[in-house]
């Protein structure tokens, strides 16, 4: 057998290696105090700005206030955007610093590495969501009809989606400049079409069709369900399942595009 064949290595997934990789990524984060502070505090501050923006505007009777609607949605969008950016930069650094090449010569499976990223930043996102949701519901009086725990869950699934798409995008970025510019490409269309700016049923049919295949749409719908029903609805669980499914699909694609042998 010749070495020309780039046989896809049988990926022996190892939970132990996934966890130890996640631990390493969190340790890197722990040494970066400013990033931790920004991760934990920035979403709350930005939400505060939105709160002040709508605070004194009248609301239609019988309708949720604009801040309740937008603020709740932002709780799902922040972790998605932040984790997308953080991950694509982190992965690009692995690539340019040579640590990725080295990892590929060790027993670590490619999917272990990517799941490690998902786990580490998923945990960071959980912490971020707990802080942001607590501040939102106490300081800004954000009204959530359903369970606050579900809001945190959806935020974490959104974050994992951001991580997965970030890992996938970084495979196509040759430089930091390119990586950063993938953010608006991947994030903004999803944000525009998710139903927050214009309700989905009022969109032109073809825009709605695009919106239908964008995962953020389902994350936002899940949050709106939690915002309007006291109990977890079936629609919400289906939405969460779709977002999680797309995240796993993106992770698998990212593993497939991560070549062990390069030229």
């Amino acid at each position, binding site marked *: 057998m010749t*070495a020309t064949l780039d046989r896809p290595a*049988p990926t022996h997934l190892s939970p132990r290696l996934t966890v*130890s990789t996640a631990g390493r990524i969190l340790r890197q984060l722990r*040494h970066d105090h400013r990033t931790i502070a920004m991760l934990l505090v920035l979403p709350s501050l930005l939400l505060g700005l939105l709160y002040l923006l709508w605070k004194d505007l009248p609301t239609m009777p019988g309708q949720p206030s604009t801040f309740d609607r937008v603020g709740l949605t932002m709780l799902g969008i922040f972790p998605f955007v932040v984790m997308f950016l953080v991950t694509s930069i982190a992965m690009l650094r692995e690539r340019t*610093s040579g640590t990725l*090449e080295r990892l590929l*010569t*060790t*027993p670590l499976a490619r999917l272990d590495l990517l799941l490690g990223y998902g786990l580490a930043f998923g945990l960071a996102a959980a912490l971020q969501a707990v802080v942001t949701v607590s501040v939102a519901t106490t300081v800004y009086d954000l009204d959530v009809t359903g369970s606050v725990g579900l809001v945190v869950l959806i935020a974490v699934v959104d974050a994992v989606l951001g991580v997965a798409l970030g890992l996938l995008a970084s495979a196509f970025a040759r430089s930091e400049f390119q990586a950063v510019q993938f953010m608006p490409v991947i994030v903004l269309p999803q944000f525009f079409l998710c139903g927050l700016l214009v309700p989905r049923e009022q969109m032109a049919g073809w825009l709605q069709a695009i919106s239908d295949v964008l995962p953020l749409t389902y994350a936002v719908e899940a949050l709106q369900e939690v915002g309007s029903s006291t109990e977890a609805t079936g629609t919400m669980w289906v939405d969460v399942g779709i977002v999680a499914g797309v995240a796993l699909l993106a992770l698998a694609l990212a593993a497939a595009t991560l070549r062990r*042998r390069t030229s």
Partner: protein
Amino acid sequence: MDAVTVTDLVVDRGRRRVLPGLSFTVPAGQVTGLLGPSGSGKTTLMRALVGVQQVRSGRVTVLGRPAGSPDLRRRVGYVTQAPSVYADLTVRENARYFASLYGMGAREADAAIADVGLAGAAGQLVADLSGGQRGRASLACALVGSPEVLVLDEPTVGLDPVLRVELWERFHGLAAAGTTLIVSSHVMDEAGRCDRLLLLRDGELIADSTPAQLRADGHSEDLEEAFLTVVRAREEVAA
């Protein structure tokens, strides 16, 4: 027993043919030096040995398996030319992470750090280390797996003479214990420390020899001079 067998290896990088067809073997339990000027293809060849280089044709066998096979990954250690450790972790955190990938623990990690003389800097962030210290941290992260084959790309660059001698003693200690080491360098004074020598020039093997043999062939005690004599003799044959 040969630890590595390379047959008719051809590698293209970009539009260039970097290795036009190499064949050689590396004996087990020895220190084999891979020497050659900058750009001669040393790093490319080492990447092929550890299975991260796309190759055009040819066969690379390590410990009886095709290079890069999954089961080789815990038996072959690789230290890249530029230190590849996490700058935002301490030396100890780096060593422990790589140890965990090889199924090793904190004890092995600390031993590897001590082996490269960094015990005093174990708690320091890699970003705050000197260039030579960073290279040694990178080396520790490969030693920690106790691999059977160690592929080291210019591990002694930027080190002072004392440390360099210490590391070479360490390499020979590992070889005596059965490890196969392949060490690249572009300084000829390190060639004398190797058991075997592979001299690479423009991707071609111009000598597969020992220091003693090279001295005899080049009619000089000085390896650099002997090397130049051999190169000139080859060029005359070619012309």
